[in-house]
């Protein structure tokens, strides 16, 4: 009898593969210990579901294709409460449908991972073209006050690694974590090296151990309540209503609501050191910075190198974690540089929290591109050169 880890290795196949970003997300999930996937087909995210449908029965997990994305997110939450690590994948229109149950997962502290392979909207838009138009929907799509964790990998390899990170954060903090790529990265093939088990860490949700003292939503030292799966005899009542630490509805109490919603936000904002991820290039002597994320950041890496060759003191801040927004990182850059160029595959979304973090300390210039095409190095270089002449 093979161990579960051995089954995973055999199901994933060769250590080095030439695969799409979508595949890498599925592989990362399985490596992280995901045993349940519920989803609904949508371009350009379908391959994530297809890989999970192939792999999960082979490792004794469960794949279920639901009737829509609302049901997918619901099934995910039900499955997570049995103790399983769970994931779904979708694109913009489906992510819109998931918003209510995403909020339910936040309110009920249900670990789950949602991959959004973004395409151009609004509405049906451009199903096969990449975009980053859901960045603000990720932050504010579900109703009510809340914090969310969102990670944006920039390569096929990183898609795998970041999906593992997403599971770990989701488990440790008992909250949904979003992995956002786009149609370009989702469908792009690159060399992927599947890491060995000793090359990454796995985190499990904190577990309740004593039934007598169990209070399902009483936070532990990390502001995270210990978890007791359904069927373990702890008898947990889970509700999306405002609830006290025993999990019982207290929907009319201002005090209970205030305490609960502030804790749910604080358990994320107090773990910035755990969540925040970014990469810096030429940070030390940078005068003109590009701040980018996702597939756009790959172009920017080349642009910065070329700008340096032309004598421009350019640098790149590549954001990997977008929410909660790494304000302190951007603020630090704002103190050093004269200007920031913010290329995005939308009409300007993350440029807003950037401006907030910069707080007027330098020029912030958005460079929007929509329609499914990537920014070209030439146009970004031209934009950098123009910024050079900006007055400080």
């Amino acid at each position, binding site marked *: 009898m093979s161990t579960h880890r051995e089954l995973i290795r055999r199901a994933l196949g060769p250590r080095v593969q030439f695969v799409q970003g979508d595949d890498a997300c599925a592989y990362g999930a399985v490596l992280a210990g995901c045993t349940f996937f519920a989803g609904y087909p949508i371009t350009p995210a379908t391959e994530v579901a297809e890989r999970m449908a192939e792999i999960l029965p082979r490792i004794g997990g469960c794949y279920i294709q639901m009737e829509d994305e609302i049901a997918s997110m619901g099934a995910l*939450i039900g499955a997570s409460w049995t103790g399983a690590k769970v994931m779904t994948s979708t694109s913009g229109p489906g992510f819109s449908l998931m918003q209510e149950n995403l909020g339910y997962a936040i309110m009920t502290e249900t670990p789950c991972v949602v991959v959004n392979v973004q395409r151009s909207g609004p509405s049906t838009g451009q199903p096969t073209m990449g975009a980053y138009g859901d960045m603000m929907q990720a932050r504010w799509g579900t109703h009510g006050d809340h914090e969310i964790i969102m990670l944006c990998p920039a390569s096929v390899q990183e898609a795998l690694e970041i999906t593992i990170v997403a599971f770990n954060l989701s488990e440790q903090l008992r909250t949904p974590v979003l992995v956002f790529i786009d149609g370009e990265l989702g469908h792009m093939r690159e060399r992927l090296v599947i890491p060995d088990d000793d090359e990454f860490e796995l985190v499990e949700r904190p577990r309740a151990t004593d039934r007598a003292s169990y209070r399902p939503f009483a936070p532990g030292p990390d502001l995270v309540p210990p978890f007791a799966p359904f069927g373990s005899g702890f008898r947990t009542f889970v509700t999306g209503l405002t609830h006290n630490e025993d999990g019982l509805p207290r929907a009319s109490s201002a005090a209970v609501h205030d305490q609960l919603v502030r804790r749910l936000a604080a358990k994320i904002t107090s773990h910035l050191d755990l969540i925040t991820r970014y990469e810096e290039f030429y940070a030390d002597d940078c005068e003109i910075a590009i701040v980018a994320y996702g597939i756009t950041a790959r172009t920017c890496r080349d642009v910065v190198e070329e700008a340096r060759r032309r004598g421009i003191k350019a640098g790149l801040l590549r954001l990997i974690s977008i929410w909660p927004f790494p304000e302190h990182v951007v603020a630090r850059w704002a103190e050093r540089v004269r200007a920031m160029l913010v290329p995005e595959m939308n009409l300007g979304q993350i440029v807003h929290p950037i401006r907030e973090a910069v707080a007027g300390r330098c020029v912030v210039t958005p460079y929007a591109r929509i329609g499914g095409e990537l920014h070209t190095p030439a146009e970004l270089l031209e934009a950098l050169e123009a910024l050079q002449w900006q007055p400080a």
Partner: protein
Amino acid sequence: MATGLRIKTAAELRTNYLRREMFPTIFCDGCGIGNVLNYTLWAIDEVGLDLDRTVFVSGIGCSSRLPGYINADGLHATHGRALAFAAGIRAANPDLTVIVFTGDGDGAGIGGNHLLHTIRRNMDMTVILVNNFTYGMTGGQSAPTTPDGGFSSTTPYGNIEHPLDICELAKALGAPYVARWPVVSPAQPVKSIAEGIRKRGFALIEMLTPCPTAYGRRNGLKEIEQIWRWYREHTVLLDEWEWVEQFGSPEEREALRGKLKIGVFQDTERETFEDRWAALVARERL
């Protein structure tokens, strides 16, 4: 069940099954949802369910508050989505018993699509659908089940839409167990809920349940005696219904209009999603 039902006292039910700190309930005077809870607990007791291994799932609405009162694992989900949440529980851990409480608006209105597909997959769960003809919690708006001509806050001139027959739908979709009973007497509902729990596959028990506050008062059914008389007069056992349709006089057949069939609509066997998935895993597992 053959030896007859041993009705538990309220004190016994409270001690064995209920979450003391949740009482009193939110239900209005004359509401039938408390009866549905009673009948469910009697059935659970009859079947001998282990509450440590049972999850009660619900959506949003008055009847969806029921899991909160039961001392077991409970998932009070989003509006209309109880069956989707329940599907996740069953698919991820088929060892757990799942009982769903839903309403006519929750289960057949906003959640209609999930009802259809959960039955199609034949996931093993017992769904107790409380049909009170209205959206009670929001103050009595028209529902997919509001009778023809029924008055509600959003049909102030009478309902012009045809009501949905949830049990006929479930039967047509192949649900292995389908029954409908009014809450006015306990024996048949308790028996059906117990049969539903024992049934391997999807079981739907629709409970016709009065809502005097939101529906009744607009439709001449405010007093409990009126309501319970209405249920007796407007429900016809399936056998009798079929007999009248086949052999009844034109007047007798005409008298069926606006009435509701009650009884066990379907009691059959069908392979479940869980069994088929387990077979697939047994075949494909590395």
